[in-house]
């Protein structure tokens, strides 16, 4: 989505999905890419944005049994200014969303984001008034790790995927990491897309029924049945 915003439609670059920076891809830049990517992917400094259950599994991943230090990631960076990988572990509420966005904006480029667990990725089992239905509505996400919560192995696998992703990046093509200047502090997706991915009132089909906004067809509670009977009597 972000990429589409930054590329003028109709150009060749847009067709290829690549912004032409004028630097030709040659032996020198590819070798440089290799060295830079090697350095970047093997010393990721994660910014642990841990909120709930997933944060405990993230701690387990950092502890002795799983030890993400093996991948050069044990240096947890609690300051976003010195981090390049944000791990969002746990549910994010609408009250917390501006904090999340602000921390993402404070991180310098290049930066990556892992959405750990069902709640961060999609709201999970909390389809209600307070939980953000997927953090990708607030910040761009590179890797989603499923699970409730994911096991430490799952998180490590997600981090290895980030490493794979970094391997394929090139200095001559900065567009994957581009963020528009004016996008700071704004939702990551336009409103229509947010409605599309989460539906105007959540992604559950029985929102209206359970909320009492619409009459129900399947009545379960005795009181409902009583009321229904009264309506019929009328």
């Amino acid at each position, binding site marked *: 989505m972000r990429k589409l915003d930054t590329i003028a439609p109709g150009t060749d670059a847009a067709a290829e999905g690549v912004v032409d920076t004028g630097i030709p891809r040659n032996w020198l830049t590819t070798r440089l890419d290799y060295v830079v990517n090697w350095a970047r992917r093997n010393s990721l400094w994660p910014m642990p944005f841990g909120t709930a259950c997933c944060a405990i599994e993230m701690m387990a991943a950092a502890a002795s049994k799983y030890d993400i230090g093996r991948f050069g990631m044990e240096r947890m960076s609690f300051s976003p200014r010195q981090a390049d990988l944000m791990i969002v572990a746990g549910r994010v509420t609408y009250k917390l969303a501006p904090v999340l966005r602000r921390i993402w904006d404070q991180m310098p480029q290049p930066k990556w984001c892992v959405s750990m667990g069902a709640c961060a990725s999609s709201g999970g089992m909390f389809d209600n*008034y307070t939980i953000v239905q997927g953090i990708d509505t607030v910040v761009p996400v590179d890797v989603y790790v499923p699970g409730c919560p994911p096991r430490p192995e799952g998180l490590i696998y997600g981090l290895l995927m980030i490493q794979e992703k970094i391997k394929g990046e090139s200095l001559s093509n900065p567009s994957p990491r581009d963020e528009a200047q004016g996008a700071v502090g704004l939702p990551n997706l336009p409103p229509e897309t947010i409605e599309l991915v989460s539906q105007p009132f959540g992604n559950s089909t029985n929102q209206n029924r359970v909320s009492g906004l619409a009459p129900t067809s399947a009545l379960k509670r005795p009181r409902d049945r009583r009321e229904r009977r009264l309506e019929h009597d009328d």
Partner: protein
Amino acid sequence: MESSVTETAPHLVEGAPDPGGDVTEHPGVSALRERFGDAVHRVGCDALGYPVVWVDSARSVEVLEFLRRDPDQAYDLLADVMGAQSGAETPIQVWYQLWSMRHGRQLRVSCEVPLDDLEIGTVTHVWKTANWLEREVWDMFGVTFRGHPDLRRILMPENYEEGFPLRKDFPLRGRFSRSEQVRRSLTRGLEDVYAIEELELAGVPNSSRVAPGGADGTAPVTAADIGELDTTEGRRPPLRDIEPDESLGDLLENSVEGEPMLINMGPQHPATHGVLRLVLQLDGERIMRCIPHIGYLHTGFEKTCEFREWNQVVPYTDRMDYLAPMLYNIGYAGAVERLLGVEITERCRVLRVILGELNRLLGHLLWLGTTAIDIGAFSVFLYTFQERERIYNLHEAYTGGRITTSVTRVGGMMADLPAGWVDAAREFVRTFPATIDEVERLLSRNAIWQGRTMNIGVMSGEEAIDWGLTGPNLRASGVAYDVRKARPYLGYDEYDFDVPVGVHGDVYDRYLVRIEEMRQSVRILEQALERFPDGPINIDDYRVVLPPKSEAMGSIDTMISHFKLVMEGIRVPAGETWYSIESSKGELGFGIISDGGTKPVRCRFRGPSFINIAALPVMVEDELVADVIAINASLDVVLGEIDR
């Protein structure tokens, strides 16, 4: 049972039968009848058998003050204040759950507040713990507590405009569309993030603050209504004396030593154990004042549970306290079983004790590891996580999940234990105490550890009760209150164990109490594993527990029960209960109301962390900034439970 004015105050749930039981002889009830006469509308009985008194909301403060101050009553622990509503048009109920340490008695006072006049007196001057509990009722139901010193949103953002979430007319997914919710959340200004008094302290002019509650038109709380927090009572004087009539603003001007500083700690901070935000006013390194902000992890559990069937609530319970998940599972199932009036099997009861104590260890181990990191000892974290991994393996062998276990069902467990599990648990219990000794050798006599923890965050026993502290935090202050001993459940009275208490009520004592509790848990585990009986794990009632597939295929009756349970779920008889267990963090209460349907009308979780963290401002006052970390860590809070 005699009842005086039954017709004027209906039962919360229409047509609910009284669970019976003679409560008229209860000394609290007779005294209230005698003294307050007509103000006592009705007397009933909780599903657990203790009395419930419905009183006139106009006189509730008098009644509650009497119950606290009268030496024959002495209800000194206000365990819970909760709101409840049974339908969009019905009045809101406010429950006060009381416990008397001296007499060992339980009582509930229940008031009805009509929707057109949502006002009731505050009891913050009677129990300090009422402060946050009443704020929560205001936040969730919009009940105004007359005379409350600081009535503003607590879990929702300060300027939340969609209404009061737990009211029955509030839709589960909020009033605004998703994109509007995201937009509003990302464009919040200063006033949504800071309390008015903080903005005043920081010198931001008071601007157009909308009425809290917005659409519902409740009068805005102005700065003038907010009094000084009374936090100095019974403590040594602060660094600089603050005269009661002198506002903090004047203090800023008159200060010759420089300006106090206002700093924000959190919500994203490595040492707040989650997304807690503390606004600290500092005089150099000393804390003048601390204002906690919570709700950054408010997940809407209580609302969501009203839309789930009784057994579907279980997976929600373990996501509240993800440090000791099974304790929540066990407590919730126990509460619903009280409403159903079923007795679980002996094997199930002992298994729940085993799992509960394993999870107490799990919670205390995480507390120990993270607290040690906060205070500067990293290696303890690695030691404790090794033991946690062993408990996780036991979890996984039984339930398939490491943290989110969802192990209980109403009337039993999700399954019986796999072969070899008990032996694995015995092996763990045999080898585990070595780690406690090892950690104790690292910490207990460590000069740095002692220097950072001794005489820090001191709280006396009376003060702790007044603030409603429970669990190890209360016991460290010398009060031997443990729900397992006070109101034994799951047959805890049959086990031989001690309740460790501290003497000084400081951070070091809280550490010692938890260490000793782990040893006591090991003792309970040894006894429980020793006596672990054979027999069925679930009760023999197919209206409650799912029949085995083999049986369901063989008999038509069983098949019908199976079908009904899968399609509809359990029906729990109409009634209400407030049931509590001892979790790793304190008294974990479940206020549950059923109208006879397949879903709860109200599912209230009294998280001990919520009450414990409310006392943080008193503990950190006049301490150093670094001590805030140690004190906050020593309270052992889990944000999932605070914010729910």
